[in-house]
C-alpha cells in the first residue's frame, strides 16, 4: 500500500489551497460516501456490534438500498447474483467474527467463479485485536486464500482510498472478491476523505488487456487452416461484458466453426443457433465432447480447462493444436499445456481475431469443414439428452422442458439460478440460454444453497424480470431462511424444486460407483414445501403428476410473491450423458448404456 500523506504534508497542501482540502468525516461516513461514488445502489448485509457505525450511516441516507438477509452466507451469494446479472461489482456488509466466517463460503464461491464482489466486514476495535475479544476472528487471515485481495484498515485516512482500490481490484483483470476489514474505532474516527480520482492505488497493478497481435495473427492462421476446429468458451466471455458475447457471435458466424461452452459460459452464444453444440464436460452433450476429443484446432476463450471439463488429462483432445485466450497468467498451462497462449481480455482478443480474419481475407476450408459438420451431425443424431418419458411420474427433464416452454413464451427477461447437483446439470442441458448474464450457478465451488440468495440478488437488480431458482429439495434447505428476505422485499422469486427426496447426484454416484450403497443420501423427513412457503408468507404449489405440471408452471409464472413449486419427480432418474471419472471425452456413457455400465471399472 502506498503511504498515506503525513500530517505535515497535509497541512502544507491545506495552506496552499484551502478549498482543495479533503473533506473530513468519520470512517463510517467515508465508507458510504465511497460506495456511492463507486456507483453502488444495493448492498446485502446483516448488522452486528462491530459494524453498527456503518449501519448508522446507512440509516441516514437514501442512495444505497440495504437488503437485510437472514444469514451472512446469503448476503454474499445475493451480491454474486447481483454482480453476475448486472456485470457490476456486488457489495456485502457483515459484522466481525461469525458474520465474517459465515461469509467465507460466498467469498470462496466468488473466487472460483471470478465474480467481482466487495465485502466489508466489521472488526473489533484496533486495541482489542489479538486479545480474543468478543466476536473477534482473524478475518484477513481467514479470507486471505479465498479472496483476490483483502485489507485490514487501521488508519482512517487510508480508508476511502482502500475502498476505491478494492472496487478497482474486484472488477479489473480476472474479477474476484475483495474483503475490507474495518475495526470499529476506525469507523468512529475522523479522517480525510479521498475521492475516487485521488485514491492511492497499487500503481503497478495493471492486468493485461490488449492481446499480443503477433499471437493473434498466428491463432487466426491456425484457425484458417483448421480442418476440424471447435470454439470452447467459458465464463471469461461473460465477465468481459456484453460486448464479448457480441464479438463472439460475429467471429463464430464468420468462421462457420462449431462452438461449445463450459457451465460458466452458457448464454454467451445463443443456444438456439445451429452452430451451438451444447455444454461440454462431465455432463455435457455427446457432440460437444466428441468434437473436443477429435478436433484439430481448439480455440479456448476465457475457460480454464477445469477437471470437470477435461476428464482424463492425458487423453484430453490428443490431436489438437490448442489456442488459449485468458486474462489470468496462472490459468495458462496450469492443467493442459497449450500451443498458443494469448494473455488478454476476451472481448479484445475476439475482436482482434475477427479483424485479422477479415483483413487477411481468410476463408475456412469449406470442404473439410463440411466433412466435420457431417461428423458432428452424426454425433448429434445420438440425441444424447433423450430420456424415457413416463405418463405417471414426472421426469425431471420433462419438468424443465415444460419450464423452458413457458419461459420462451414469456415476454419478460428471464434469469435462472440454480443450486448444485443433478437439477443444476439438467437445467444447464434443458433451459434456454440465449443471452449473457442470465444464468447464475455455482460452477467452481459447487455451493449447495447458492441459488435462492443469488436469485434474490438478481431480482433486486431486475425487479420486473422473471427470476427462477431451479433447485433440488436438499440444496434449497441449505439457505431456505432467505425466503424471509424475499418476502420482506416483495421479490417474486420462483423456486422450482425438482424433488426426488434424494441428494440426487450423490445417489447417482453411489449407484454407479459405490455398489449401490446409499449412505446418508436419502432425506427421511422433508418439510411440506407448500406449507413452508405459506409459513414464510409466500405461495406454495405442487405438481405430482405430469398432467398437473403445466397448470402449476402457468400459475407460477403469474404470482407476484416468492413462490415455491414442489415438483415431485422420478426418484431414480440419473443425469446423462456422463463422463465417468478418469475417463476421456470419447468414453462417455449415455442413458441407454447405463445398465451395461461396468460399475467396477471406474
Amino acid at each position: 500500500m502506498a503511504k498515506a500523506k503525513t500530517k505535515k504534508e497535509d497541512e502544507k497542501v491545506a495552506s496552499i489551497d484551502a478549498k482543495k482540502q479533503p473533506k473530513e468525516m468519520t470512517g463510517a461516513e467515508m465508507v458510504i460516501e465511497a460506495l456511492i461514488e463507486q456507483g453502488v445502489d444495493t448492498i446485502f448485509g446483516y448488522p452486528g456490534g462491530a459494524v453498527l457505525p456503518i449501519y448508522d450511516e446507512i440509516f441516514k441516507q437514501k442512495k444505497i438500498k440495504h437488503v437485510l438477509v437472514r444469514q451472512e452466507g446469503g448476503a454474499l451469494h445475493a451480491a454474486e447474483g447481483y454482480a453476475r446479472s448486472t456485470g457490476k461489482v456486488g457489495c456485502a456488509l457483515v459484522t466481525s467474527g461469525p458474520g465474517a466466517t459465515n461469509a467465507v463460503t460466498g467469498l470462496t464461491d466468488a473466487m472460483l467463479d471470478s465474480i467481482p464482489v466487495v465485502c466489508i466486514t466489521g472488526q473489533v476495535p484496533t486495541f482489542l485485536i489479538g486479545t480474543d475479544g468478543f466476536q473477534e476472528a482473524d478475518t484477513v487471515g481467514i479470507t486471505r486464500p479465498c479472496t483476490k485481495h483483502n485489507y485490514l484498515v487501521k488508519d482512517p485516512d487510508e480508508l476511502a482510498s482502500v475502498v476505491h482500490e478494492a472496487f478497482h481490484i474486484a472488477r479489473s483483470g480476472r474479477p474476484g472478491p475483495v474483503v475490507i476489514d474495518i475495526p470499529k474505532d476506525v469507523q468512529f474516527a475522523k479522517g480525510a476523505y479521498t475521492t475516487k480520482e485521488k485514491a492511492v492505488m497499487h500503481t503497478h497493478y495493471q492486468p493485461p488487456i490488449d492481446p499480443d497481435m503477433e499471437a493473434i495473427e498466428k491463432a487466426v492462421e491456425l484457425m484458417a487452416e483448421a480442418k476440424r476446429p471447435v470454439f470452447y468458451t467459458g465464463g471469461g466471455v461473460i465477465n468481459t461484458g456484453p460486448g464479448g458475447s457480441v464479438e463472439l457471435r460475429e467471429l463464430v458466424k464468420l468462421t462457420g466453426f462449431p462452438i461449445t461452452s463450459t457451465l460458466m459460459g452458457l448464454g454467451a452464444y445463443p443456444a438456439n443457433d445451429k452452430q451451438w453444440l451444447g455444454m461440454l464436460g462431465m455432463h455435457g452433450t455427446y457432440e460437444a465432447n466428441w468434437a473436443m476429443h477429435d478436433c484439430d484446432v481448439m480455440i479456448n476463450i476465457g475457460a480454464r480447462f477445469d477437471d470437470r471439463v477435461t476428464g482424463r488429462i492425458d487423453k484430453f483432445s490428443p490431436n489438437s493444436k490448442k489456442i488459449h485466450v485468458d486474462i489470468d497468467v496462472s490459468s495458462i498451462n496450469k492443467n493442459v499445456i497449450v500451443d498458443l497462449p494469448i494473455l488478454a481480455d476476451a472481448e479484445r482478443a475476439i475482436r482482434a481475431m475477427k479483424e485479422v480474419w477479415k483483413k487477411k481475407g481468410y476463408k475456412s476450408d469449406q470442404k473439410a469443414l463440411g466433412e466435420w459438420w457431417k461428423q458432428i451431425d452424426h454425433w448429434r443424431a445420438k440425441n444424447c439428452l433423450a430420456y424415457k418419458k413416463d405418463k405417471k411420474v414426472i421426469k425431471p427433464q420433462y419438468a424443465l422442458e415444460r419450464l423452458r416452454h413457458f419461459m420462451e413464451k414469456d415476454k419478460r427477461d428471464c434469469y435462472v439460478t440454480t443450486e448444485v447437483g443433478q437439477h443444476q446439470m439438467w437445467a444447464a442441458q434443458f433451459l434456454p440460454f440465449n443471452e449473457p448474464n442470465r444464468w447464475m450457478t455455482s460452477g467452481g465451488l459447487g455451493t449447495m444453497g447458492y441459488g435462492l440468495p443469488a436469485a434474490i440478488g438478481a431480482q433486486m437488480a431486475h425487479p420486473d424480470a422473471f427470476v427462477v431458482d431451479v433447485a433440488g429439495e436438499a440444496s434449497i434447505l441449505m439457505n431456505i431462511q432467505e425466503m424471509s428476505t424475499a418476502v420482506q422485499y416483495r421479490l417474486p422469486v420462483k423456486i422450482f424444486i425438482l424433488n426426488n427426496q434424494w441428494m440426487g447426484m450423490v445417489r447417482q454416484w453411489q449407484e454407479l460407483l459405490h455398489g449401490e450403497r446409499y449412505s446418508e443420501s436419502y432425506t427421511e423427513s422433508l418439510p411440506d414445501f407448500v406449507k413452508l412457503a405459506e409459513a414464510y408468507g409466500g405461495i406454495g404449489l405442487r405438481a405430482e403428476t405430469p398432467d398437473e405440471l403445466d397448470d402449476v408452471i402457468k400459475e407460477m409464472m403469474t404470482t407476484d410473491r416468492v413462490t415455491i413449486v414442489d415438483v415431485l419427480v422420478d426418484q431414480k432418474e440419473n443425469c446423462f450423458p456422463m463422463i465417468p471419472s478418469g475417463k476421456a471425452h470419447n468414453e462417455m456413457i449415455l442413458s441407454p448404456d447405463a445398465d451395461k455400465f461396468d460399475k467396477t471399472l471406474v
Partner: protein
Amino acid sequence: MTGTKRQKKTKSVSVYAPAPIQAEKETHILAVLVNNEPGVLARVIGLFSGRGYNIESLTVAETDQDQHLSRITIVSTGTPAVINQIKAQLDRLVPVLEVSDLTVETAYVERELALVKVACSGDKRIEALRSADIFRARAVDSTLESFVFEITGTTEKVNAFIDLMRPLGLVDVSRTGIAAISRGKDPIGA
C-alpha cells in the same frame, strides 16, 4: 434399499481423474519484489502451502525503504510445470511487483550465511579453528568451551562446513537461507 447386500470389493473410486505421471523435479531460485505491507509474507507463504508447493528456503527483508519494497528470495523444488505455476501464481498477487526466476533467466550469485556453534575442548578446539580457517569462516564468539563461527557461501559449502564440525562438537546451527542476485548491471525485472 440394497445396502444390506454384501458387495464385492471394488477398487477405490474418486470423483477426480488419476494423478498424472510426474516429470523430473528441478530446484529454482525465485526473486520476488513486493510492497512491504502487512500480510504480504503470509500471502506468499499461504500460496505455497495452499497449493502444495515446496519451500526449501525463504529469506525476506525490506530492500527499498523509500518505496517500502521488500525482496523475497525463495528456493523451491518442483517439476517445470509446477515452477511455472508458482511464478504465475506469485505474479497475480496484488502486492507483487516482480517475479524473476534467476535459475533460468540469468547468471546469478547466491550466498547463504550460517552461524555454527561448536562446543569442544583440547585438540578438537584446534582442529575446529583450523577447519574454520580453510573454509574462511570467522569465529564471532568464543568461550573456553565453545566457538560460534560465521560462514558465508553457497549452500553446498555451508553444508560441508557443518558436516565437518559435527564430530568436533556441533551443538547448534542458525542459517539464513539463500540470498541471490543476478550478475551484471541490470536490476530485477530489467
